């Protein structure tokens, strides 16, 4: 058969493959033959066709686990790209392609292609210049230079999940989503007593000058639900609420939300409940308390934080000047630092006898 005949046959084969199979399909000899394109199912002929397609970058050669030969089809678009590449560049491109969304470390490319470092660097530079590949940041190995195809989104393994931006934890984003979650869960964890009871109380409050930020909201009373209540929010409902809220530019997956929920549990803001219909979350504080706490700003470094009025937040060691005393270890009666000469007791006394 002539060269052109093979070319035509190959082209027919390619089109049939595109039509009948998924682009990710791994083709074996059988698959091609079953398409009934190759006359008499001649393996020799098939081999010639596939070779030509491989040369045209329309097929990529693979080897499966049992070392059998197999092929994958490449889109014409990609093939065009590949055709413009030098042999080395093609090699590098294929290796990067093979790791898909996981990306690949430069050192790994080198071992797999066996190219010299300088050649490899040149190839990578050229590929990056053509915008075929991009370098990605891996949270697990921040020092490793990694590449993946330009059109792919890095997997969560590499980015560390939704909470990382360019490999750096996005604390502001985390805090805003976490705050939203806590409040949302809280609203579903407490029963809000209908307003008519609270209104009078609120008026008194404002009259005494204690104007709150949310002045339109009446002083609310919240009650916990009975212990066999099943209406607490689940991961799914929380995820939906977050995604619908508009506070996140990207859609967050459940696994990302679970990460945040666990963090909130470690903060003892939420607790996990194992209900009949699965895991659900309940907030420790009621919505009002959550809101108040979130609006309170942290005292700046070195600033006097003021008296602690929250119950259960202090103990003997946090209240006494000895607890946080920087000289505590060295303090002994009669020594240079001693209870008698201590300079902290007087201010402590003044501070605490004042109110």
């Amino acid at each position, binding site marked *: 058969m002539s060269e052109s005949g093979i070319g035509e046959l190959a082209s027919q084969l390619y089109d049939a493959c595109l039509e009948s199979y998924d682009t990710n399909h791994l083709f074996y000899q059988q698959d091609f033959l079953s398409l009934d394109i190759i006359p008499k199912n001649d393996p020799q002929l098939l081999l010639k066709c596939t070779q030509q397609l491989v040369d045209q970058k329309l097929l990529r050669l693979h080897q499966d686990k049992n070392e059998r030969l197999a092929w994958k089809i490449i889109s014409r678009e990609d093939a065009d790209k590949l055709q413009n590449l030098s042999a080395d560049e093609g090699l590098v491109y294929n290796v990067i392609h093979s790791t898909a969304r996981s990306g690949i470390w430069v050192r790994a490319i080198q071992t797999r292609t066996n190219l010299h470092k300088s050649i490899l660097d040149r190839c990578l530079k050229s590929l990056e210049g053509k915008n075929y590949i991009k370098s990605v940041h891996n949270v697990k190995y921040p020092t490793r230079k990694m590449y993946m195809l330009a059109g792919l989104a890095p997997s969560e393994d590499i980015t560390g999940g939704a909470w990382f931006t360019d490999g750096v934890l996005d604390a502001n984003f985390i805090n805003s989503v976490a705050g939203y979650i806590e409040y949302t869960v809280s609203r579903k964890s407490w029963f809000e007593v209908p307003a008519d009871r609270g209104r009078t109380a609120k008026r008194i409050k404002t009259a005494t000058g204690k104007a709150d930020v949310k002045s339109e909201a009446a002083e609310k009373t919240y009650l916990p639900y009975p212990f066999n209540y099943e209406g607490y929010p689940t991961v799914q409902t929380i995820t939906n609420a977050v995604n619908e809220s508009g506070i996140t530019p990207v859609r967050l997956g459940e696994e990302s939300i679970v990460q945040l929920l666990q963090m909130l549990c470690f903060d003892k803001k939420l607790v996990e409940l194992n209900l009949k219909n699965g895991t659900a979350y309940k907030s420790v504080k009621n919505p009002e308390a959550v809101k108040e706490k979130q609006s309170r700003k942290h005292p700046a470094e070195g600033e006097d934080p003021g008296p602690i009025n929250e119950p259960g937040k202090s*103990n003997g060691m946090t209240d006494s000047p*000895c607890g946080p005393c920087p000289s505590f270890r060295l303090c002994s009666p009669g020594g240079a630092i001693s209870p008698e000469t*201590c300079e902290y007791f007087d201010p402590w006394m003044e501070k605490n006898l004042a109110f």
Partner: protein
Amino acid sequence: MLSQYAAELCMLLIEDHFGELFARIFSILQRYERLTLPRLKFYSRLNDKQLRHALAAMIQHHLIYHFTSLEDGNTYYEANPQAAYYLVRSGKILQLVEERLGEYAARVMEAILYLGHASVKELEGRPELRSRKPMAPNGIKHEEEEPQENGMDMEDGPATTNGDHDGEDKPAPFHATLKALASHGYILRVRDAHFQSPADNFLEAQRAVAARSDIKALKGKKQEEAIREKAQELVQERTNGDLTQGLMFNGLPRGVKRKFSNGLANGQRQNRQNGVNGDHAEDEEEEEENEWSEDEDGFDNIPMESGLVVRVNYEKLDVALRNARFVDLAQQDAPSATAEVYACLLRRVEYITPRCRDSEEIPREKEEGEQFSTPISVQTLLEDIDPSLDLTGALGPMDPSQSMNRRGKRPLENGVDDHDDADDDEDEASSGAMRAYLVNQHLGLLSQPPFDLASSVTLSVGPSKWRVGFRGLARKLRHLELERMIESRFGDVALRVVRVLQAKGKLDEKRLQEISLLPFKDLRQTLASMQRGGFVDLQEVPKDAQRQPSKTIFLWYHDADRVCSSILEDTYKAMSRTLQRIKHERELERDFLEKTERSDVKGHEEEYLTEGELERLQRWKNKEALFLAAVARLDDMVAVFRDY
């Protein structure tokens, strides 16, 4: 042997209460462990007369143990640090007794503390216990709480003769009160073995057991084991001073008022006092008054055996104080009605719990098993819960879309809809079955996170019962104390990190970041400062023999046991320093304070002191209170780390 700071603290407490002489003897005994009189005389540089008198008084106060050896005939003296330490808790103990059993009971308790140990006869003869009213006015606020005083104007002073009180005009309920204290387990019978150190008691018991023929018949390991076991039993038997047996009535100790306020925790008491329902409270008090004098069988007024010698039972009081801490936990995030129901459960649990734990030391965290209280049935609790306590209003409905539901949980909101239903609900709510259901609801809430304060036992027959897991809760208290310190020193970020480490064990920085979701910079800073503070540790796991840092895995961990024991030492030290400081402050004010203590001035301060001086005295008292309250709070931590 006590640690340096604990020993120092015990010495300071003894000095604060009994003066330098006892303190000197005590610290010498602490340093040399056990001494005979001649050796003690030598080391202490005190004369024979001082020593003998002081030793006698210290034995009377259980501040020292003594042991007379059968072999050499010598009597050895040894410090009793436990008794010395508990001096610091005396205020809390008296406050608790007052809250539970009234002002007069607190006065009886104070007399016992003041005397060290005392026979019933001696106590009965104490002039300060003859009258229902305190001899010296001590704060108005107590009186309001004390029902016995209401409506009776008895004069102070020993107007009546001691001895038989029957036939007298409203005498102090001494015997009934003593029985109440005894049946609550707050006091115990003094036994000979209480004067010997635990080690001596054990050795003596071992000797006694080893001499028994059945034990002699055993051999080798078996014999050793049998001796140890039997000796422990014997020590138990010899030191057991329990007085509750035979004094309990229907599972309740004497002096507990059923149905009404004394059966309830302080939370409610305070609510009552602060609340507006003044007349209501008065009614109650009258009722209580009646109950005191008209106890059904007159049993309460039958005197206890006059030769019985009693002292304070610190072990049992720790159970009561620990329970109060558990109630505090419930109060933090649960409705007050829930906390009250819980307090009732804990009261019942207290009656049947002789001590906080059975093991001498707190076991290591991971090796500690749970130890549950005896389960209490809801029916029993219903007898104790104030029937006027609103159990319905504190919980939301099952279905939030309605403001109330058929189960009648929201009778208060019924103005809006379902008006007729609501009335039915209220009737239903007061019925026994409904209340039992509601009690289960409240305790059920506490059985869930974040509380985990109680757990239910479902039996195949009969209604469910509720119990408390002591070890888990004691651990929770310990962790909370650590967390408070960590949060105030290192911030809430640190708190999260420690909890992650607590839950997951040893972690490297990366994994720690993934879970804690903290920026590396913050995480590293926090870990470093916590490491300096001793709250977290770093373990190096080298990957090769060269132990190169680049090839080493660094794992962070939080060892709660180690941190707790080091904080305990710090706490002792802080207590000592605070007491030393106040001693110093008193020294600065000495001339002035001595003036106020002059026999002509004392008790007549208003008369003898100028306005400025009175103000100065008040300022001093406030100052001292601040210091003593700080010490008391530190003692709360010691209790958590050592006693609970």
